[in-house]
Structure formats: structure tokens, C-alpha cells
């Protein structure tokens, strides 16, 4: 009897914690475009899925790509998306029956020489994943290594949103949220497209800060990043998906300033891709893109394209892919 009471108290506690957590999640967890991205990923068929970092998000426009290639594609890149995240995105698409024909991995060396930081975007994709084996695998391999608060309190990195709780609540009850609308993601700096592309707009403060990129030094490759790039290649091979890796252009000045780091990274990724049988395009070293690397075309020194030039780049890249028979695919 005594034990029964104890277990009843425990059950009550558990229910209380779950209840408070769901309430807080609802009130604090914001509506993000990652929710829309993942919704498209698991509910529609795509020929091509773009995965990668913020450079890909702002540099690869699926609408332009599709108009050249006559395909349907989606941009699933995200700032803070590491190879481990990209791998699970592709795996989720396969698991939910929306296997693509082609995956284009936007390869940013910075994500291979650092570890995922447990900041606000650490679990953002994980949170939007529907219950699935892939989500469980994702939890096991990424979230489990992180702070226990990521799992026990899914809202905790957004506790600062307490001051805009009214906004979040009204947004979550709106039709737009239910229909995966995108109008609320537009602001003077950028427009989110339902294809997943982010169009960056010119701002007066652009390029005011010269941020130093995380650089390849020859001995700082993160084992985890390399492992998941390999797994991505294996997954694509197993599933019969064509995998292409691309490094989008970075302003000429930046590459010149850190020329040895960029050249070293290029060498490393060229060798790795060759080993894995993946076609790799490093647009910083391809003649066709040399006129698209003027600093004026970018938001910052780090190399995020303005929308207009992203379209130009995507068009040229798509044409190149379409007509390039010299590359062998596995």
C-alpha cells in the first residue's frame, strides 16, 4: 500500500512535469521556417534535395535550379546544419517515402573543423522531425551527447522568448501556422521562399563586421563531421541516390586573405570526395564562377549571396551539372 502511494506520487509528478513542459513548449517554442522545411520534406516528392549550411540556404535557389533542369527540388540547408544533421534529413526523406533522385550537399569547410555548438539551433531540426526511426537515431547520435535539458525541457533554449509569449501564442493559433504559411518569416533583411530558399536583401549595415571564418588548419578535422559525410555517401549509394558536393563561392578577397587555409581544405575535400566516389565542385576554384565572386554580390565577407546573385549562381551551377558528363557517378 505504501509503495502504491509512492508510485502514485511519482506518476503524478511525471504527469505534472510533462504537462508543464508541453505548456511551456507551446508558449515558448517559436514558429520557425525549419518547421516548413521539414513539412515539405516529408509530404512531397523531390528530385533534388539541397542540404548544407547557411551558404547553401542563401546561395541555392530551387526555383531557378528547377527552371533549368525541369525538376522539383527543395532547399533543406540551415545555418548550423552539420553533416550529422544533413545525414538525418536525407534519411528522414527516405524513411517517409519521399526518396529524392539526387542530393546536393553544400559543403562548408567550417562545419568540418568544428563541433555542433549547443546553442539555439542545436536541436531545432530534431524538434521538427516527426516521430520516426530516423528521429530516434538522431536522438541517439546527437541529442544524447548534449545537455540533458535539450531532451527533458525541449523549450529551454527559447526561455528568452518569455517576453514575446503573446506573439508566439497568437501565431500558433493562427491559420498560417496550421497551413505552414510563410508570410511571417519575411523581414527587411530576407525573404523566405516555400522552396526553402532564403533571399537576402541589401541592408545598410552589411559587411560592417568582418567576421573571421573557422579555418581548416590541416589537423583540425572533426572526426564526427567526416564520419557523417561518409555515412551520407553510403546512404545515398545504398538508396541509389546521386550525391554531389558543392562549395559555393566565397568573396575573392576572403579566399585571398586565407588562401592557404582555403586551398588546404580544397585539397582535403577533393581527396575525400574522390575516395567516396562523390562529384565535388569547389566553385572558388572553377573558372566559370570567377566573375561571381565580387564582394559586392555578398552580404558579408563570409560569403552569403544576395538573392539576385544567388539566382545567377544557381543558374550557372545547374547548367554546369546538367551538361557535365565528365564526372562519373557511382
Amino acid at each position: 500500500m505504501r509503495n502504491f502511494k509512492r508510485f502514485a506520487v511519482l506518476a503524478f509528478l511525471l504527469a505534472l512535469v510533462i504537462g508543464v513542459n508541453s505548456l511551456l513548449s507551446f508558449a515558448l517554442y517559436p514558429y520557425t521556417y525549419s518547421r516548413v522545411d521539414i513539412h515539405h520534406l516529408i509530404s512531397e516528392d523531390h528530385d533534388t534535395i539541397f542540404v548544407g549550411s547557411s551558404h547553401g540556404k542563401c546561395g541555392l535557389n530551387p526555383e531557378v535550379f528547377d527552371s533549368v533542369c525541369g525538376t522539383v527540388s527543395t532547399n533543406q540547408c540551415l545555418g548550423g546544419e552539420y553533416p550529422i544533421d544533413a545525414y538525418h534529413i536525407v534519411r528522414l526523406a527516405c524513411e517517409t517515402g519521399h526518396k529524392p533522385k539526387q542530393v546536393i550537399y553544400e559543403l562548408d569547410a567550417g562545419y568540418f573543423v568544428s563541433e555542433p555548438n549547443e546553442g539555439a539551433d542545436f536541436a531545432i531540426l530534431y524538434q521538427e522531425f516527426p516521430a520516426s526511426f530516423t528521429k530516434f537515431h538522431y536522438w541517439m547520435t546527437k541529442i544524447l551527447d548534449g545537455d540533458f535539458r535539450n531532451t527533458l525541457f525541449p523549450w529551454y533554449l527559447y526561455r528568452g522568448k518569455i517576453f514575446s509569449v503573446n506573439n508566439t501564442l497568437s501565431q500558433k493559433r493562427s491559420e498560417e501556422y496550421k497551413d505552414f504559411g510563410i508570410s511571417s518569416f519575411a523581414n527587411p533583411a530576407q525573404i523566405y521562399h516555400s522552396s526553402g530558399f532564403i533571399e537576402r536583401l541589401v541592408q545598410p549595415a552589411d559587411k560592417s563586421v568582418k567576421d573571421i571564418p573557422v579555418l581548416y588548419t590541416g589537423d583540425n578535422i572533426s572526426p564526427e563531421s567526416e564520419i557523417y559525410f561518409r555515412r551520407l555517401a553510403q546512404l545515398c549509394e545504398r538508396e541509389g541516390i546521386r550525391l554531389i558536393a558543392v562549395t559555393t563561392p566565397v568573396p575573392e578577397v576572403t579566399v585571398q586573405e586565407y588562401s592557404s587555409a582555403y586551398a588546404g581544405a580544397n585539397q582535403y575535400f577533393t581527396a575525400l570526395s574522390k575516395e567516396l566516389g562523390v562529384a565535388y565542385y569547389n566553385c572558388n576554384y572553377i573558372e566559370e564562377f570567377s566573375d561571381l565572386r565580387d564582394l559586392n554580390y555578398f552580404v558579408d565577407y563570409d560569403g552569403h549571396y544576395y538573392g539576385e546573385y544567388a539566382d545567377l549562381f544557381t543558374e550557372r551551377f545547374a547548367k554546369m551539372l546538367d551538361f557535365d558528363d565528365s564526372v562519373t557517378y557511382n
Partner: protein
Amino acid sequence: MSLISMKFVVFVAAAVFGYYVIPKRFQWMWLLLFSYIYYASSGVKFLFFLLFSTLTTYGAGRLLYAVRTSCTDKKKVRFYGRIIVVCGLFLNFGMLAVMKYTNFAVLNINAVFGTQIDLFSLLLPLGISFYTFQSTGYVLDVYWGKCEPERNVLRFALFVSFFPQILQGPIGRFHRLAGQLYAEHTFDFQRIERGLELILWGFFKKMVLADNAGVFVSAIFSDTQKYAGLSIFGVLGYSIQLYGDFSGGMDVVQGISNLFGITLDDNFKRPYFARSITDFWHRWHITLGTWMKDYVFYPVSLSGWMNRFGRFAKKRFGKSIGRTLPICVANLIVFLVVGIWHGAAWKFIVYGLYNGIIIAVSGLLAGQYRSWKKALHINGSAWWYQLFQILRTFLLVNISWFFDRADSVPQALGMMHNAVTTFTPSELLSIPVQQNGSTAMTAAVLVILAAGCLVLFCVSVLQERGVCVREALAKRPLVLRLAVYLALFFALPCLGQPPSLTGGFIYAQF
């Protein structure tokens, strides 16, 4: 696997669940299994170091026992015993020294002789400083006849590797810990509740106090020019951070051990209420202090050459000073070792010697103090005098934290200079506490930090007055207890810093 990772939570839950499900006689083996899994998770190759320590100290214990039981000649027993102990200690401290201090030595050799020797890429095995001390303490205990040697090598392996404490202590003693590890434990709801309570309190200290303070501390110490006027807050913040981090970690470790029915030695006893530096070391990292006392301080003080030095000093300086001087020298040696133990850097050596010198000087002047106090009619138990002692000690301790936290001795000295010459508290609000560099939450974090300190202070004052806070709470109605637990539980995500800005436990790097 870090103490704050989800993996560790799952790991502990699995360990506790299995512990009470399997037959009780297998419980210690279960702990051994999980301890080795835990250690291997930091890198399988590190198991070599753990096994090396375990086997050499186990072997030394067995050999000592064999010599004692088979040899009747007392002189021979002592002779062989000495050889065994020296070999055992040499192997273990030798390994620790090579892993921890090779690069320090190379750096200094390069600096002094202008050589260009490359640094070695040695990765420090997890917790090596802690289990080396724990297992060598065992060898000396066996040698001195303070405990019987363990026969079963697997049981002994558990003593060296018990997973909650291997990362950052407390440094356990065989005669107090081993019996508990091997005993059979029945499931006790109340004990589990108490264990979880302590774990929550530990995480509260780590995440709400240490991590919030840590954001300010790392900003101030990483740009001492920009934040020159905040030096004093830098070191005060560090005193909160270090205490919250280390003692919070100890509470978590102790709480987890309680879940298995095991009680570890206390490592902290409200150190900032200490009334002298000696008192401070009786309250701060207690198990390191007692280890040093038993295995370095007493043996050195009682050694033959110290004896001769004592006799010489008595002749030269008179009875009182002559008696104290050798003790002071031994004490300086102890704190030199404490400093070196903290890390391979000159600033840690200065940190150790600073403590040692203060204690030695106050030891030499103890008689003087007594006569001054008498002359000035100071009543040692008056509240104002005790408060004076506490504040004086806190000040001295904070000076030592400059050496502990700064990158180098010159930086520490520069910051001390700034601490007394410039003071611009309003700049605290310009320190970003969010990953995106925003200062919008800075004021809020400062308020949270102050409130957290107030909670800790109240609890500490009660404990200093002899109130057992946890006993008192246990007597309260269930509803109140649950409310306290829930408040602590939700304080972790609501008020604590995310690890992106702070990192893991400080002492887990030793």
C-alpha cells in the same frame, strides 16, 4: 560522457535500475561493469592507464601482505616493504608525471636553453589525478597497517574505478569506501529520494550559480584591458563559479552514489565561512587536503632528515621556533605539490606556495597572535572578531583565485592591480550573456545570479549554525517537498546557462 549530458542521465538510470533488479551478490560486479563502460566511453585506449594503476597498486598490496605473513624478521619486513612501496609509488606517480607534466617540462627547457624540442601530443586520461591518488593512498595504508589488502583483484578494480567519483573525486579511502562498494544494498525509496534531492541541488549550484557567473568571469578574464574596471567582479564571480561548479559536481556525484546506497567522503564544508587559510583547506576539497596531510605532510615531517633539521633548528633558533620550522617546511612542500597537482603551469605553483606561505607564517606566529589578542583584550569568540576573520580569509582566498584563473602570473598581478585602482561596475551590463552577443538579458542574469547566491547563502548559514537542512526538509509534508524539488528542477532550464557559453565541469580536467 559529461555529467550534464543526456547520455549520462540514461546511463545512471540504467545502472540504478539494474542494480536493484539483479541478485544482490552480483551488485558490485554490476557497478564494476558500468564503471568500466563509463571509463571506456572516454576512449578505449585510456583503459590501459586505469588497468596499469589498478594492477600495480593491487600487486603492491598483495606483495606487502605476503612479506608480512611469510617473514618473521621485523627488519626484513620493513626493508622489503619499503622497496615495494617505493616501486609502487614510482610507477604510478611516474605515469601521472609523464602524462601531465612532460609538455610543461619541455616548454621550460625550451625557454631556458633556447632549444626547439617539439611538444608531445599527450591526451590526459580521464580522472588520472584522482584515481592515482586514491590507489596510491591504498598502498601506503596497507604498508602502515591501516587496512587489510584486498584479495580479489576485481573487487579492487571497482575501488579504483567507481564511476561517479572517478572524474573529479572525492578521493576515497579504502577502509571507508571499499566495504560499502562490496556490500549488498536493498532498494530504499527514501534513500533514492535523498539522492535525487542532492543531485538536483548539485545541478542547481552548477547551472544557476557557476554557469551564470562563468559567463561574466570568462568575459572579464579574456579581455583584461577592456574590462579593467571589473577585475574585482571577475574574481568574485570566479569564487562563486568555482565553488558552485566543484561543490555542485560533488553533490551530483554524492547523490548518484547514494542511489546505490554508497556514501562518499565529503569534499566541501562551506569553505567561504573559513576563519583562516588552514581552516579553509579543512573545508575546501577536503579529500585532497586530508590525502596530502596523511600521505605527504606527516611522512615528510616525521622523516629522518626532517628530524635532524628539527634538532638543528631547535639549537639555533630556540625551542618554539625550532619545533615549528620543520613543520613549516613540510607544509610548504605539501602546497607546492598541491599547486603542481592543479596543473602544469607556473601560476599554479605560485597559487600553491601562496597558500603554503600564509599557513606557515601563521603557524610560526601562532604564539605571537595569542599574546597580541591578550594584550588587546580581544575575545576570540566575539561575533565581530569571527566576522573579521571570515572576511580576512575570504580576501586572502580571492587573491589566490587570481593565480588560479588568470592565464599567467603577470596577468594575475595586473588584474590585482586593476582591482584596487579602477572600478567601473556599470560595465557589467555591457557583457553579453547570449550566444548572439546580445546584452538584452545581462541584467536579468545578474539578478538571477544574485538571487541564487542568496539562496545558497541562507542554506549555508543554516548549516553553519548546525541545522541539517535536508533533515529538516525531510520532516516537512510531502507537498512542500515536492514543491521544492519541482522548483529546483525547473530552475535548471529556466535560470541556468546553456553549455554553449560555459562548458563542462572545471575539475573534470584534472
